[in-house]
Structures are given as C-alpha cells and as structure tokens.
C-alpha cells in the first residue's frame, strides 16, 4: 500500500499513566504534504517518531509505502524516512557541513566517490554549496536546518518529516526553509509531513491534521481547518491574519465567506466587495 498508514495505534510513554495516543488511525498519501497541528504534548512528535520506528507502538500497525514498521525493517525504514528535528544544534553530528551530510551516507556504507557526488548535489539543492567546509558554530539556525535537510536529501528518502523544524528560527530563516520545502514538493515526489504551530506553514500543506485528546480531532484542507477559530484557540495555534479579519467583519454583521481565505484571497474579496 502506498503512503503512510497508521492503524489503531496506541502509545504510552514509559512511566506515564495515560496513553498519549489511543486507537489512532491516520493515512498520509504518497507525494502529499500533510501538516500535523495540536497542543504541546498532544502526540504530534510521537506520531513522527512512531513512523520512523524511533518509538515502538504498544498496539496497532504502521506501514510506510508498504514497508511494515518493525524491528526487522529499521535499516530500510531509516533509509526511506528522514526527520528534521526542532533544535538545529542537537542534530548536527559532523564537524563541518560536508561531514555532517556525509554522516548518514557513511551509515549506509556508501563508497567515498559516490558520497562526494551526493553531498555536492544535496548542498546545491539547499543552496549551501559555498559553505561545505564551514563549522556549525559559524552557521545561523536557518542554515543549520538547511544542512539537516540536505543531510536527508542526500539519503534520497521517500518521506521527509519536519518536527517543528522552523520553530527555533528567525522569520527569514523560517522562510528559506519553507521556500525550500515548496520547491522540493514541486520537483520531487516526496511525501512531506510537517509538525507546526505556524498558520502560514499550515496553508502551504495539502492537508491539515488536528491531533488532540489521544487521537485525530479533525482533518482536511487548510481552508477548512483554519476557519474554525474556536478550535484554533483551543489548540493554541495562532489565528491567521485573514481569518482574524474575517471573524471581526462577521462580528460586525458583515457576511463573509465560510471557508478560510489566504491573505491575498481576502484582499481580492474585499476589493470585489468595495467596488
């Protein structure tokens, strides 16, 4: 079966009295960008770690493009799935940018000649070719996260997961990482999963999945999720500017479109209304 399938997943952290996920079912189609949103501790990151076999579910079955997530398939699984974590520093293994990208390739026992070619290609993809020999302490957070993405691209995975990978970056750094993701989605048939609190990032995804109370509270295109202001408030997700505007207009008695509009769509709608 294609894509990522989670069936009836239950997971309890060691020492916790309550499972963080209970009987969760979720399908992430191949080649699509899905965003997981939810409160801190709702189990978003747990889902990411379960998919990559970094955690083992108490119950249930997970497959990634047909490959069952079990102890026996971990090596194959780590080749298919790449994760970019939140803290740019704590995933930088190598002493230089090139060394860091080489780390995953060394684990796959690639011959050196092929490694150099893959590193060059991956660095070119993220626009960091000039910094190949730079030490991590001289890089910005955004640059480090781009290196992390390059390290994963070099492994030629099918699935890339970003676990709040932009949350510790400044706005410019965040934008470069998001632009890179948009570009990757266009050019390669990558399945992208992002975990975020950022409404802008949500609107870029094909599908938004709301993780709440041990399971999936709602899922659908961003336009359907982002207009549920009450839900967003409860999750602690920022309300997008256009939605906020639309809510305030509604409160004043203006009839507004029911679904979420991006800022540009909102501007167009307002112009049509006013002319």
């Amino acid at each position, binding site marked *: 079966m294609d894509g990522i399938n989670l069936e009836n997943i239950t997971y309890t952290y060691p020492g916790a009295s309550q499972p963080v996920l209970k009987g969760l079912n979720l399908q992430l189609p191949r080649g699509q960008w899905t965003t997981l949103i939810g409160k801190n501790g709702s189990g978003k990151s747990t889902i990411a770690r379960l998919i990559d076999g970094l955690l083992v579910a108490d119950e249930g079955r997970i497959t990634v493009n047909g490959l069952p997530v079990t102890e026996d398939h971990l090596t194959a699984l780590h080749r298919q799935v790449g994760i970019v974590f939140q803290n740019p520093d704590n995933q930088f*293994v190598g002493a230089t940018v090139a060394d860091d990208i080489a780390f995953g390739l060394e*684990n796959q*026992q690639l011959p050196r000649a092929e490694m150099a070619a893959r590193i060059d290609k991956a660095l070119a993809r993220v626009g960091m070719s000039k910094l190949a020999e730079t030490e991590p302490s001289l890089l910005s957070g955004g640059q480090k996260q781009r290196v992390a993405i390059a390290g994963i691209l070099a492994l030629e995975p099918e699935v890339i997961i970003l676990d709040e990978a932009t949350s510790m970056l400044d706005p410019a750094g965040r934008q470069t990482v998001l632009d890179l993701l948009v570009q990757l989605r266009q050019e390669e048939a990558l399945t992208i999963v992002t975990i975020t609190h950022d409404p802008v990032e949500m609107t870029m995804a094909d599908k938004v999945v709301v993780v709440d109370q041990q399971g999936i509270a709602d899922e659908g295109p961003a336009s359907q999720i982002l207009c549920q202001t009450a839900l967003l408030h409860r999750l602690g997700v920022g309300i997008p500017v256009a939605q906020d505007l639309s809510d305030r207009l509604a409160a004043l008695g203006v009839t507004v479109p029911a679904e979420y509009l991006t800022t540009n769509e909102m501007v167009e709608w307002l112009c049509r209304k006013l002319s």
Partner: protein
Amino acid sequence: MTNAIVFGSYVPGNSRLHRLDPRAKLLLCISYVVLVFFANSWATCLLLAAALLAAMVMSKVGFRLYWRGIRPLAWIILLTVAFQVLFSTGGPVYWRWWLFTVTRDGLVNSLIIFFRFMVIVTASTVLTATTPTLRIADALAWLMQPLTAIKVPVNQITLMISIALRFIPTIMDEAVKIANAQRSRGMNLDEGGLIKRLTRMIPILIPLFVDSFKRAEELATAMEARGYDPAAPRTHYRQLHWHRRDTVSLLLLLVLAGAVLVLRYTL
C-alpha cells in the same frame, strides 16, 4: 572565541608543517616526546632543542603564539621544578632548612625536568598549531586501528571524540548564556574569594549538565534516525593522503633518534 581558550592552538597557514599528513605529524610528535626521555646530557638536550626550534621556524607560526600556548602551564611547570629543587636528595648539599634541602642532584634533576616539560609542551603545541583538531582526531583513529583486533570499539571512540570536539563551542555558548541568565537574576560572579566564586559556579554547572544530557538524548535520536548503528560497519568520507614528504619527515626523525641514541650510549 571561546574555542580559542580550550584548543587555542590551531593557527591556519600553509607551511610545510601544515601540509604534512596529520598521521605523520602525530607519529613525529609522539616519537619526539619519547626521545626527550632519552636525553641526559647537554649535547642530547641541545640537539633535541635545535630540532624543535627548526620545526617551530618551519611552521611559520609566530613565537609569541607558542608562548601563549605554554603560558597557561607555566605554574605547573614552576611548581614541579620547585618541588624537585627543594625535596630531592643526593650529592653535595648546598642549603638546608627544616624539610627543605637543596642538593646538586636536586638541581640537575629539576633542570632536566624543566627542559623536558618545556620541550614536550612546545612540541605538542607545534602539532596542534599546525593541525586542525579534527585532523588530529582522524590521525588518532588511524593510530588506534590495530586495537580493533583486541575488540576495542575504535570507530565508536573516534566518533565520540569528533562529536565531543564539535560540541565544545556549542556547550561553551550555552555556559555563557546560563551565566548571563544567572547574572540577570542578580548573581555576582566576579566578586568574593576563591571558595565563594567556586560555589557560585554550581548554579551554572547544574543547568549546563541537565542541558547537556538533553542534548545528548536528542542527538542520539537524530543519529538513529539517520541510520546510525554502532554495531554496523561504516565507510569514511574524510580520507588522509600520505605523500612522500611524510615519509621523508619520518626518516629525518629517525636520523635525529639515531644521533640522540649514539650520543647517549657512546659518549
């Protein structure tokens, strides 16, 4: 900048010594240190010192930088020398008071120890000044390779060393951040006696340790996600290249060793 205090030593350059293979430099440095222990006369000491001086000149690293490398150790060297002078016995006695005696043998020994200390520290500084730390780690890994035969996990140790080196600046930054955070809460780090200052380090060290453990755990997860398996063999991206100049440098050292040994055992 914080980096400079710990491994202060690498001075970028393109001298002959910089270009030598790190394995050659490591071997040279180790065998030189061993040779220093064979030096027992003015002739051998002068010969070894001359060789070191030649290496220092060849490295094109300023003498002032070398001095900066040795200076932090000056206290230890002086203390050891003072102990030798005051406590060792043998030969004619020049001066005696309470527990302290200054004898001829004591003076000679302290001179030899002083010489050894200075020369060994300087020789290692020549190595670290001309070789990036990471390269030294690579060379060390190569040198330890034979240990795999007796089941020493050389590759894991090497990876550990290189990760430790890579995280030094990160953890230094963190320490500065924590110190600033504690200062902003009204802690005064720069006043008081030694004991007071040391106890004030505790509120910095504890968060630093906790943070480092968290880092370690996250790093381990990230490494596992990228397919790291400690038991599996890995290929290596960084490769060292042995040139003829490296062989020549080792031959030169062999000549030096021969000269020192001849001087020691025949004269």
